[in-house]
């Protein structure tokens, strides 16, 4: 087990290192890094300042070491669009909004996916199961940004049930959270269904039935408890997917989170901020995957031996 954790940890660090190379390299492979780093209207004075600050006149490996050193301290330079603010500080300011949206979306997804997944396993091959299948298929085929725009049109513009965009109370979060979570509902529901189907066949379920327990208790207590292990460990992956999915959904609903910051910064060519967002998101993403893998290995010893 310890060996497995060490190996996975090393892999994750390697992946993060890869991200740093990609981020560092992208600004440089395209020719003059100035073109990527600086906006078009930058002054010559500004150019000079950045060149010295970043040491762009020094050889690449030296630059990379300097970049990595700064990155490890969370220093990605100052934003060019928002003068005087550090890139990392901006990300930190916007991160709570994204986390808020992602966790709300996670709650909604679970509240829909869990009962639906259990019921479609118990009532296999009934209309209910088919409805679940259709939801899953639609979830996998529908682009989230379009779902967002359609929800906005139907529920905000037409029926005026929810605000169109922006932030505020819970009501502002409902539509973006549904649009964000829809795909995850589909994935989670199928996962719950298949692990429920496995459990429903097992011996202890038969025993519980023979014992005379009511069917609802067998399903929701005995089966679900055991079937929930796999989907539960999957939570980290879903959380990470929701965070990255937020990049798209936040721009649909003008939700002022990190995703919107990333898209705005890319448009404004604010490369310092883009770097910071990519590194922060990748760290979250990679850590979530690491935690899930370790949890899996803990629950299922076969994985450790691979």
């Amino acid at each position, binding site marked *: 087990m310890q060996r497995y954790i060490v190996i996975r940890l090393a892999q994750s660090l*390697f992946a993060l290192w890869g991200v740093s190379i990609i981020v560092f390299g992208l600004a440089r492979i395209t020719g003059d890094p100035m073109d990527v780093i600086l906006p078009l209207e930058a002054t010559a004075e500004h150019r000079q300042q950045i060149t010295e600050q970043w040491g762009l006149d020094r050889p690449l490996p030296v630059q990379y070491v300097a970049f990595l050193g700064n990155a490890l301290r969370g220093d990605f330079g100052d934003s060019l669009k928002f003068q005087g603010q550090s890139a990392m500080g901006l990300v930190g300011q916007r991160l709570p909004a994204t986390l808020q949206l992602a966790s709300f979306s996670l709650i909604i997804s679970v509240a829909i996916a869990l009962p639906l997944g259990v019921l479609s396993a118990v009532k296999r091959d009934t209309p209910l199961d088919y409805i679940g299948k259709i939801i899953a298929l*639609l979830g996998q085929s529908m682009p989230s940004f*379009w779902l967002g*725009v359609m929800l*906005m049109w139907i529920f905000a*513009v037409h029926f005026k049930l929810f605000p169109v965009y922006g932030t505020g109370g819970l009501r502002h979060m409902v539509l973006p959270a549904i649009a964000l979570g829809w795909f995850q509902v589909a994935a989670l529901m199928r996962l719950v269904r298949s692990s429920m189907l496995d459990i429903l066949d097992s011996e202890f379920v038969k025993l519980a039935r023979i014992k005379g327990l009511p069917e609802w208790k067998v399903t929701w207590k005995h089966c679900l408890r055991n079937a929930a292990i796999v989907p539960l460990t999957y939570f980290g992956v879903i959380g990470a997917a929701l965070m990255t999915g937020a990049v798209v959904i936040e721009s649909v609903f003008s939700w002022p989170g990190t995703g919107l910051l990333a898209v705005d910064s890319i448009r404004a*060519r604010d490369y310092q901020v883009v770097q910071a967002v*990519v590194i922060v998101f*990748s760290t979250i*993403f990679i850590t979530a995957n690491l935690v899930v893998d370790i949890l899996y290995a803990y629950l299922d010893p076969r994985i450790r031996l691979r």
Partner: protein
Amino acid sequence: MATEIPGVTRKALWSPLARGRDSLKWARRYPLVPLAILVLILLAPAIFAPLIAPHNPNEVVLPNRLLPPAWVGETVVDGVVVKKGGSWEYFLGTDKLGRDVLSRIIYGARISVAVSLVSIIFGGLIGTVLGLAAGYFGGPTDAVIMRVVDMSLGLPTILLALVLAAAVGPSLTTVIAVIAVLLWARYARQVRGEALAIRERDFISRARVAGASPLRIIIRHVFPNLVNTLIVLATLQIGYVIVLEASLSFLGAGIPRPTPAWGLMVADGRELIFVAWWVALFPGLAILLTVLSLNLLGDWLRDRLDPKQRQL
């Protein structure tokens, strides 16, 4: 007929590369008709766009801007036309520049099909070559390739695509390159897994004893056994790639304007959602139906060609 030929797997017999009577058997067993029809429905608008589309997709006719779909009547308040009604000339309405939405959707199919096919071919090619090398040679080659695969599978896709596209500048070539870079790892992992298993089979050692070079063994003996897997994986991925391209275009890091791309059209429609719902609705429906049918096709193919990967 049904006798086993030593050294040839049954899967290989059923693969499209098999010749003669065996391929007839394959065709009989797996009716290709529904598949062909589906692909035709998808490809037809893409190939024959100029013949089918009623209008030039980029023709700007400002007097006709924001016409609703044909079946929507005009709104009259006190004898004054407040909102224009639809016309059959512009079946699905027009956008803010008076361009025909239907024609743009038909031409948009071209972009989606082109981007997804080309990027899957490139990504699949890179992934297959590296996966074969890793699986067949093993050892340090395998270790190096698989570490990179693990790394690229563990990265947030859409964000990296955004950054790549932003650093290089949005264009059709960039989008294809970005998506191919994101796709290759999944092929590499799958191909490597299967190549590892195939390498241990008797017919490979026989080929080796017969003096075949590693390259020949890989191309003539290992690869044909992977064709089914690759077909299934590619079909299942086309839908994903179409959504990915549309998302990138929606965010402004994909296909540049004024090319008719579905994602861009939805982005335009989002701005107009208060006045013109049809601009966003129909291109999204096009994405939904295309991806849905591709996913169904992929599932069906997987059950037929690669039952091992079937899910409950």
